[in-house]
């Protein structure tokens, strides 16, 4: 199967590969997996006090499309508010990367990772609010 140029670009020069401190209160971590292809994706966001995503990092073990989808997701998330980032749809990712139908699930994985990371960050803030003031 031929990959699109954009997929190859992200695959060969993945943006924002790496890890953020999972235990930090300002970091949200999303972990998702796709049993169909055994792909595992970790997507992390660093959120400012104003609720802006300052940094995003990913690590994906999977095919080129999965790597490109998560790489693109981190690019798109940076600078966005949590609510804005939450509106990123897998169809947008698939369209941007020109993913063939058999690789659509890779973009679904990326969308789920985005949501999981945002959820993780938000649940951390809730816990924070609930904790007694130091």
């Amino acid at each position, binding site marked *: 199967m031929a990959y699109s140029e954009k997929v190859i670009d992200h695959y060969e020069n993945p943006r924002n590969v790496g890890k953020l401190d999972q235990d930090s209160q300002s970091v949200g971590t999303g972990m998702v997996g796709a049993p169909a292809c055994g792909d595992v994706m970790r997507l992390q966001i660093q959120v400012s006090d104003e609720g802006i995503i300052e940094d995003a990092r990913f690590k994906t073990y999977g095919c080129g499309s999965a790597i490109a989808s998560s790489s693109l997701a981190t690019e798109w998330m940076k600078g966005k508010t949590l609510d804005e980032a939450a509106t990123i749809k897998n169809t947008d990712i698939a369209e941007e990367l020109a993913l063939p139908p058999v690789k659509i699930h890779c973009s679904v994985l990326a969308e789920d990772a985005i949501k*999981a990371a945002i959820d993780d960050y938000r649940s951390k803030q809730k816990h924070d609010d609930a904790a007694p003031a130091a």
Partner: protein
Amino acid sequence: MPSGPAGSHWSGLFFSGTFFFDAECSSDTICDLGIDDVVVDLSKNYFELFELPVSCQVDQQRLSSQYRALQRAVHPDRFAGDGERQQRLSIQYASHVNEAFDTLKQPLPRVIYLLKLAGRDVDMECNTIMDAGFLMEQMALREAVADIKSTSNPEQEVERLADQVDADIHRYLQQFEGFWVSGTEQDLDQAETLVRKMQFMVKLATELEQLESELLDD
């Protein structure tokens, strides 16, 4: 009629559950049977086809011997000189038998099939949100696999990881069996989750095998 491989003697009793015999067929060697005499009942489940109990564990020896006997009976080569319909039937039967064998041979397709028999189609495409602990473990395993070549003794490291993955697959299989035998809806949910985890591990095992042969080639 074309003759089959030498020594492929036919035992009617052995396959009484699988084949339908023409009442007038007096021969006791499979080589003399036409495809119409050897009807594979496509409605039977794969376990029944091989006359095996429906179970997580499969007697591999029996599976192989039943498979060989069935393949001998329906192999398209035997019907090369017959009409088009007979040839088509034999191809259909042979591919059914092959698929059944492939499904039962390895644990993962076998347990997926068991769930299917229990009315559960495991959807591997969706369900991306899995238990976080498992995914972290997967991530760590993948990282270890990615680093193998830079370790001081890659061969040993491949073996260590392969053993670990095999042990995990075995453990999941045993857990699956417990849930599957009990068979309540909740238990089948658990069984389904285990199948997904197994799928990850099997992928990893395949990758490790590839890596191992690469290391041997170097």
